[in-house]
């Protein structure tokens, strides 16, 4: 593996691990705020106990969220320094604003959430909890604005003198439609994660016949909150599909394994085996017209297939090749009007010219084979996208079913919920994580070969490190993260097993075991 592959692997590993903790944090803060609101409104201490107990599990998760989050902020500079130079003018702002507007709020108030129960009035403490949840959600907003810009880089312009992208419209960056749909889709997915977490553990207590009142109330809140969230994930996910259809045609075609352009309206491939060799999908089961409807909201517009997209890329690579050569001339001192004007005409294809640098140092004299290779490399591999998208959707559908049933039974106030439902809830625990990771893969892998869509190829974005540098850092991160995750899961299981007895109020089952866990 070279430094590009290793840097990509290191980034993918750190972000995927980080993303194990983020959705749960987003979801649980909201659920804690809801539980505490019920406590303040009804005055029933059981709701305070619920807030405190689920808060303990939240704390165990939050610690690793911070740990792994810091790694992300360092990595742009350490491993992607050309990226940081090239787009820092735009990309840095949302990150800084996230810290200033959201992360400060969340982190300052998380301390008060845990430590100020005896020092603040009920109402003030509730405000702290809500502000903590607000901070978490605002964090997600700004991070996804930054990420949305990588998918769809609006409001920015290339400056040849400073050799970077510069901000031209901040409001376009903030109101980037891709960022907005990603934000609502992702935070809703976080709410679902929190809801399943509470639902599954509560179901386990109900199945064991422990802490019935506590578990039943937790179950009800999780079921209602989860149903609303899972519906919004699905509706907003569809909206996201529409946005992708509008601006990320390659991603859409790859997800759908649309090797060839079909006459409108395009069919939706439900299942099949994408075959890159033959550029076909074997054993495909297709539903007529549905893809056209999702991607274009019409029956008459065509959805471009990879064949057509690659032909367009070939043209852009050839224009980009000229732009790249002109840029080099300019950088070496040829600032004549002819050069500048021609470069400005071709400027939007500069990124496509950079794709050639993966295959040759001498871009001006790239051979037809090298150009053909760049065209092939201008789209991602199809099968990982095709499959991860379907895994994500399948998990979403299962979770929808679970929440409909759970909500139904808690609305009916079924005293003893059916055992199969409780088991279904327990076995559903991994689903939101599988869906989130698969969704992340669709979003990020689907943008390859670009670090910034159509602007900066991934292979150009890396720092000039050595393979050894990366092997050492990657190895250390993997070892450390593995240890952390083992400790985390072990603590989670330990505290989930003990249940609300961990609060030492003397009111719950298994108080004896809790005393052993943390002696007096």
């Amino acid at each position: 593996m070279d430094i590009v592959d290793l840097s990509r692997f290191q980034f993918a590993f750190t972000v995927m691990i980080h993303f194990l903790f983020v959705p749960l944090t987003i979801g649980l803060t909201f659920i804690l705020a809801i539980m505490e609101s019920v406590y303040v409104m009804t005055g029933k201490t059981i709701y305070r106990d619920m807030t405190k107990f689920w808060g303990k599990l939240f704390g165990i998760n939050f610690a690793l969220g911070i740990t792994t989050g810091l790694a992300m902020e360092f990595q742009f500079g350490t491993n992607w320094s050309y990226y940081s130079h090239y787009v820092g003018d735009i990309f840095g702002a949302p990150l800084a604003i996230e810290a200033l507007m959201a992360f400060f709020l969340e982190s300052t108030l998380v301390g008060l959430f845990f430590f100020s129960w005896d020092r603040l009035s009920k109402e003030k403490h509730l405000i702290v909890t809500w502000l903590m949840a607000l901070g978490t959600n605002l964090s997600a907003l700004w991070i996804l604005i930054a990420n949305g810009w990588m998918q769809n880089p609006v409001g920015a312009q290339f400056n040849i003198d400073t050799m970077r992208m510069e901000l031209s419209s901040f409001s376009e960056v903030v109101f980037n439609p891709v960022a907005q749909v990603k934000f609502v889709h992702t935070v809703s997915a976080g709410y679902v994660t929190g809801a399943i977490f509470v639902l599954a553990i509560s179901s386990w207590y109900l199945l064991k016949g422990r802490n019935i009142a506590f578990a039943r109330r937790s179950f009800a809140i999780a079921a209602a909150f989860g149903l609303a969230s899972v519906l919004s994930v699905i509706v907003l996910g569809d909206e996201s599909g529409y946005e992708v259809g509008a601006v990320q045609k390659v991603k859409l075609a790859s997800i759908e394994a649309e090797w060839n352009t079909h006459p409108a309206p395009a069919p939706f491939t439900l299942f099949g085996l994408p075959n890159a060799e033959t550029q076909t999908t074997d054993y495909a089961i297709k539903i007529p017209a549905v893809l056209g409807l999702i991607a274009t909201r019409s029956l008459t517009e065509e959805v471009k297939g990879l064949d057509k997209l690659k032909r367009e890329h070939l043209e852009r690579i050839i224009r980009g090749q000229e732009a790249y050569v002109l840029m080099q001339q300019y950088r070496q001192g040829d600032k004549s009007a002819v050069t500048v004007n021609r470069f400005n005409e071709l400027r939007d294809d500069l990124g496509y010219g950079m794709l050639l640098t993966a295959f040759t140092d001498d871009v001006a004299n790239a051979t037809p084979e090298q150009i053909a290779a760049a065209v092939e490399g201008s789209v991602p591999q199809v099968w990982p996208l095709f499959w991860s998208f379907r895994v994500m959707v399948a998990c979403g559908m299962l979770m929808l079913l679970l929440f409909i049933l759970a909500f139904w039974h808690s609305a009916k106030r079924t005293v003893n919920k059916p055992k199969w439902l409780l088991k279904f809830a327990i076995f559903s625990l991994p689903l939101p994580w599988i869906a989130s990771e698969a969704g992340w893969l669709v979003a990020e892998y689907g943008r390859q070969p670009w670090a910034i869509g159509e602007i900066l190829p991934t292979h150009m974005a890396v720092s000039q490190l050595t393979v050894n540098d990366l092997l050492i850092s990657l190895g250390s991160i993997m070892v450390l993260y593995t240890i952390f995750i083992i400790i985390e899961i072990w603590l989670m299981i330990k505290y989930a097993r003990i249940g609300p007895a961990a609060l030492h109020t003397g009111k719950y089952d298994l108080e004896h075991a809790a005393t052993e866990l943390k002696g007096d």
Partner: protein
Amino acid sequence: MDYEVLRFIWWLLIGVLLIGFVITDGFDLGVAVLLKLIGKNDDQRRVMINSIAPHWDGNQVWLVTAIGALFAAWPTVYAAAFSSFYFVMMLTLFALFLRPIGFEYRAKIDNDAWRNKCDWALTIGSAVPAVLFGVAFGNLLQGVPFYFDDILRLHYTGGFFDLLNPFALFVGLFSFLMLVNHGATYLQLKTEDDIKARSERISTLLSASCAVLFVLAGLWLYYGIDGYSVTSIIDTNGINRTTEKTVVISAAAWFNNYAKWPWLSLIPILGVLSFMVCALSSATKRHLLAFLSSAVALTMVIATAGVSMFPFIMPSSSMPAHSLTMWDATASQTSLQIMFVVACVFVPIVLSYTAWSYFVMRGRLNEQHVRDNSHSLY
């Protein structure tokens, strides 16, 4: 607003964020380093941990914000510093990893061996960054071996061990003692009896040593380290022409600004004085004064580094003309302007709820209180 003015404001703001970081996160790094030294048993260590527990996380966001602001306001500096100092950054990061785990997981299991491991995680996780921040500054003052190619891609030509040179390690030691001292002054404010008494003694000793080390660092810099100066005219109002200036390296050049504006010498002088005031007030049990003078000392130390190097941020030793300065390694005017407005709105808000959180958690902690609340405190 003028590009020039904005650039200067951002130089100040990055300084403010760094100072905010060392003043707030500085004391919790210091407290965690002192854990084993001052805390003689689990209860005492828990008093120390709980004195910072509600705040350390919010404090660390000063670092996160400073890095974010660096990325946004000085993208080239962020890119250059983080990739050149690759292993220093990785080590800092790995050390910082240990802190959330140490804080959050320590009390979750009542077992001496486990708590001992968490104590070490907290101590190492706090000591290593405290040293490495100094090491990074020590290297900035000596220049870093990097250059840009024709498309402004950065190439670092040094090795990891070049970063651990004697001067950088000396600055690392200074930074370490300074932050540990800051932690000791915080403990004087927040604890009672044994812990407080030990903190007073340690702080007296450390702040006196810091005064000496600060002077020694200045002498070493004057006699032993070459500084950088720009000899061409930089268009401070124009776009970045990062690689198109001329820079010379000469003896004592880091003292040029003090010759030009003599009143700036007040900054390092105040730094030394504040360390001395801190030593005296710790010795005489004036706890608030000890903490405040330590905070002033930290501020002055960072300001000294900034003023000495001005306008340089990251000088290049292999290609001095490619050195990064606060005039030609900045974000665009539009970006700086927007970020400035955002900072004007949010910095006061952040400061007010931070202050409120300290007010809510005010008062001293003692061992009895920690024992009584063993299930809600860390």
